[in-house]
């Protein structure tokens, strides 16, 4: 089930398949322009490519695959957000493909609502909650689950 995330946090908001996603700004290492990507034959579609981030080989994840979004070709706004997540208690650096990076903003806990069980296009397990900023809804994805569940 979706976990309720009620505390406030600093978030980096990014555009993905027409939605706005918020990820914990503390986990973000850097934001890169699009770089050459190397396909890994036989890898799961979510992490089908590798990139070079300052001499480190880092998997590049396309979250749109997990949310069933169209994979549109990269545009001038496309960025790679390099984040560090804990996988099996091991810090792992992953690049996340984003259609556009918006801003760093603070999302107050009060504005975050539980993920509705129905009326959602996506698997609710992959989402921690829905935040609101002005009239916009912001999706707070559960990055670790996105990588650990299949």
């Amino acid at each position, binding site marked *: 089930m979706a976990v309720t995330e009620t505390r406030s946090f600093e978030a980096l908001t990014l555009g993905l398949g027409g939605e706005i996603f918020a990820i914990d700004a503390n986990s973000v290492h850097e934001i890169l322009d699009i770089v050459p990507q190397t396909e890994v034959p*036989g*890898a799961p579609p979510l992490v089908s490519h590798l990139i070079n981030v300052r001499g*480190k080989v880092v998997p590049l994840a396309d979250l749109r695959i997990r949310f069933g979004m169209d994979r549109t070709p990269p545009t001038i706004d496309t960025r790679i957000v390099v984040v560090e997540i804990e996988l099996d208690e091991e810090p792992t*650096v992953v690049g996340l493909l984003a259609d556009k990076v918006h801003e760093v903003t603070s999302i107050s806990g009060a504005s975050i609502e539980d993920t509705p069980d129905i009326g959602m296009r996506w698997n609710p397990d992959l989402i921690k909650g829905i935040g609101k900023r002005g009239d916009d809804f912001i999706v707070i994805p559960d990055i670790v689950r996105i990588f650990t569940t299949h």
Partner: protein
Amino acid sequence: MTGGDPGQIFREEAAELLADLEAALLHLEQNPTDREPLDTAFRALHTIKGSGSMFGFEAAASFTHHLESAFDRMRKGELTATPAMIGIALAAKDHIRILIDDPARADISAGDRILARLAEQSVSAAMSAPLRQEHDDAEGPATWRVRFRLAPDALERGTNPLLLLDELRGLGDAEIVALTDDVPPLEELEPTRCHIAWEVILTTTHPRSTIEDVFIFVIDETELTIDPVSVPVSAPVPTMASDQPAPPMPAAPDAVPHAKPSPPSKVDAGPEKGKAQAASNSIRVPAERLDDLMDQVGELVIAHARLKQLISDSVDLQIKSVTEEIERLSNGLRDITMGIRMVPVESLFGRFRRLVRDLSQELGKDVVLTMSGEETELDKTMIERLNDPLVHIIRNSLDHGLEPATERVAAGKPPQGRIHLSARHAGTRVLMTIRDDGRGLDRDRIRAKAEEQDLIPPGAKLSDAELFQLIFHPGFSTARTLTSVSGRGIGMDVVKRTVDGLRGTIDVSSTPGVGTEITLGLPLTLAIIDGLLVRVGQGRYVIPLFAVEECVELPPDVERRHASRNFLNIRGALVPFLRLRDSFGVRHPPDLYQKVVIISSGDKRVGLVVDQVLGDHQTVIKSMSKLHADVANFSGATILGDGSVALILDIAQIVAAGQIQEQRREAS
């Protein structure tokens, strides 16, 4: 991160000392009369005790104290180093290790039992010991003139002369005079150096060796003379004048403390000095720092490759010459860095002396372990990871390979079994061989077992090498009875996996009745490999060069018979080949002339069809993240000159895939 924890520093130091201790004990067991291992063992114990209590490892220190006392008595000849004594000492060493590494886990009663056995042995061993020392002691008090001058940097190294003097005082009546002749004028005086020498007139019942023992830890750097003073002097001796170039004269015990002493003799600055110098020139560095250094150098190599590619079109000769200069420097830096990480395999082989000793006792087999090529160097990480696989192999040799003495004699072999470890360089690889002169692998049993487990079809034709590879299959063990040593069916598959993980190879050869030989082929380092860069579709891949045998063109007639018969005729031998474009699901149309890279693993060969061979490429290996742990065919990744990522092929997996194809052919 661990650098700041003194406890951790002690643990590391103790681990080395315990290894020295073990080596000395095993040496002593072979040569019970040798003095040197006895001294080494004693020094190691003394240091563990001293540093242990300094860093709060009280239990370890007090336990070690008992063992140290026993060794002290052995050095004095009061005890002999009997095999039983060595056995106890080895057990005690293991107990000390636990006390230091994990005091909470230590079994106090086990420690007490060891001490009880030690005490028991001390009594019986003492009776058989020669009594020559008694004679020394019986002489009654003697007077010695002890002069010593510490190395100038002794204070910086933590030597405290006051403690040495206190220890001398503890031996008997001591009169101590400081020799200040070498103290320079104030403006030249370096306060951190030791400019003072000492003369001690000591009247004691202890023998000369006890006085020498006071200096045991500083003996290499210290000028020390110990002369007997013929008559126990008690008469006052006149004070010498300062400017008098007097020869060393018997100074009286009651000489006035501020007397100007005679100039210290320098005759004893022997060849030991050079040795001490060499020892102090090495430093201890945490392994992680070397890893970081290697990472940085790796980045430098990659950055340079990019630079080289960028300026390849440039006509600016100055920039080109600077780039070449950087290439020379970064290559040099890479070689040196890799060299730093190299350690002789002796540090690995040495550990197995104990293993073989203990196992041969447990199994009641007389086994001798011999070694050659211990000086061959390998990456330190590799040495650490090879420990477990080698333990498994050696255990198997002892347990299954070597026959009991009676069986050996019946077969016309010497009763004592032999295991030989050797290491040598072969190109860019190191070959490590474990050879025994036992009964050899039982082909029929392996075959029967493999058929029983459905690993091979009944009656399948297999070469010896193929048959022997089956022993590395998980769950495969031909041991009829389980022993505590081996036969649980785990082990050899672990060996295989570990060696594969190191990008190594395993070859087994065995002759019935003569013995078995297992050879591990290992890369020199884990960090860098020489690879062949190839292109498949639009992707570029690195094939480890050690596995590449040759490159040939794919004959057009083979090309046309697509997918039906994937075999090449290489000088009469049928070699299966894989189209990497099929394996990798490449949709890009193939090049007109396809190339085949023939690779080998063990005695198996497989051809890999690629679009283009781009050339050789020295590359820094980067491991893949957890997210790609399940991906087959690749052992890692690397970064190319243009900054993009290329994948490194996993030879073992790909050859296995090729073999499946061959088996299908044979089945059809």
